[in-house]
């Protein structure tokens, strides 16, 4: 097995390269099922992080995880499953999307100056019983993965990312349970 290329921080100057117009607009304009997902990214003292970049990857409403080209130049029709949104000066981000089908969550990758490695987490829009990840977490930790419908704002969910501290968001890494028989060679 080849050793992987190490990760390095995204740094402060990615703004000329990575964000793109419509990066947070996954839902076609005017779609009746569109929802808003928004929140803040905070550091360990609750200070908003103004230079984070959030990437979302999710299933389509029909449960498909095939994705579609055209995320960077959206045609307003295809649901590509991918979004990229920078936080604003006040650490706020906003995403317009369609709720995923079949799976209860959106995958989220957080990049920011100061992080040597990006962080993976999940944004659960429902909390189905028996979800293997949620049910393995104590309630307080589990709550950090839950997007909450926002009172008084229809079709709007709030999800804050807390990079550090008492109510730090649960971040994830993946490990294969066992090596495949033919993977050892």
């Amino acid at each position, binding site marked *: *097995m080849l050793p992987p290329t190490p990760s390095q921080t*995204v740094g402060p100057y990615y703004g000329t390269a990575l964000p793109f117009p419509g990066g947070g607009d996954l839902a076609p304009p005017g779609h009746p099922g569109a929802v808003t997902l928004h929140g803040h990214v905070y550091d*360990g003292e609750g200070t908003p992080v103004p230079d984070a970049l959030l990437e979302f*990857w999710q299933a389509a409403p029909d449960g498909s995880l095939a994705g579609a080209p055209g995320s960077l130049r959206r045609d307003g029709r295809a649901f590509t499953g991918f979004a990229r949104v920078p936080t604003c000066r006040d650490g706020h981000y906003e995403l317009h999307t369609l709720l995923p089908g079949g799976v209860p969550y959106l995958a989220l990758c957080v990049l920011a100056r100061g992080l040597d490695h990006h962080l993976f987490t999940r944004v659960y829009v429902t909390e189905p019983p028996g979800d293997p990840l949620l049910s393995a977490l104590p309630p307080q930790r589990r709550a950090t993965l839950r997007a909450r419908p926002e009172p008084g704002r229809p079709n709007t969910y709030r999800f804050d990312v807390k*990079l550090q501290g008492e109510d730090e968001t649960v971040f994830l890494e*993946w490990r294969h349970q066992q090596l495949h028989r033919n993977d050892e060679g």
Partner: protein
Amino acid sequence: MALSEPAQERIRPTDPDDTLSPAARAVALRVPLRPAVRVPVPLPPLPDTVELTGPVFGAADVGPLDHDLTRQHRGEPIGERIAVGGRVTDRRGRPVRGQLVEVWQANAAGRYAHPLDRHPAPLDPNFTGAGRCLTDDDGRYRFVTVRPGAYPLGGPEDHWRASHLHFSLFGTAFTQRLVTQMYFPGDPLLPDDIIWHTVRDAAARSRLVSAFDPAAGEPGRSLGYRWDIVLDGPSATWAEEGR
């Protein structure tokens, strides 16, 4: 499907140190103190594990000149023209095909075309410093650009960044996402580059340094550098390919 036991979580006890400079302290406050929760990935992967698939990019996302950072403006940028290319593979050496590779960098004087960059070096009206391409069937990528200049990080220590290109890559799975930086061989600033040294392992760190490869350039026009990239993480194609 047992996850890592939360009760055994050892929270890193290091609160950001008061002796740190304000900038270093602000950065330290961004690093999670709890270990990441390990999600076991069964083989074959469960079809509803979102992270084992990934976004798809295609020709519509990338223009034919997006890989050439020297042709994005009316005039030629100032600087030493270079071509940087290599292969993107998974850990078993298999090409990662049709995947988006993005780069960004400072200009030849060491300044980013970014509103936050206050380094008093000249901006180049013919250089934005951002490019994109898709890997080909063999996992190859290639960019044409100018060699970025070094720049100071500020602060009492007078640290400088070695010349580097920022790279952003997707794989076939969301878990393969990689953002990293490529450096140049023989750069005298490398031993003191504090960002390069955030990779603690010397062998791993050396993999961030490209190789001078004249054949990768264009005769009479640009020098060439080769840099191969290996993406980590479970690949969604394992089960499909049956190996």
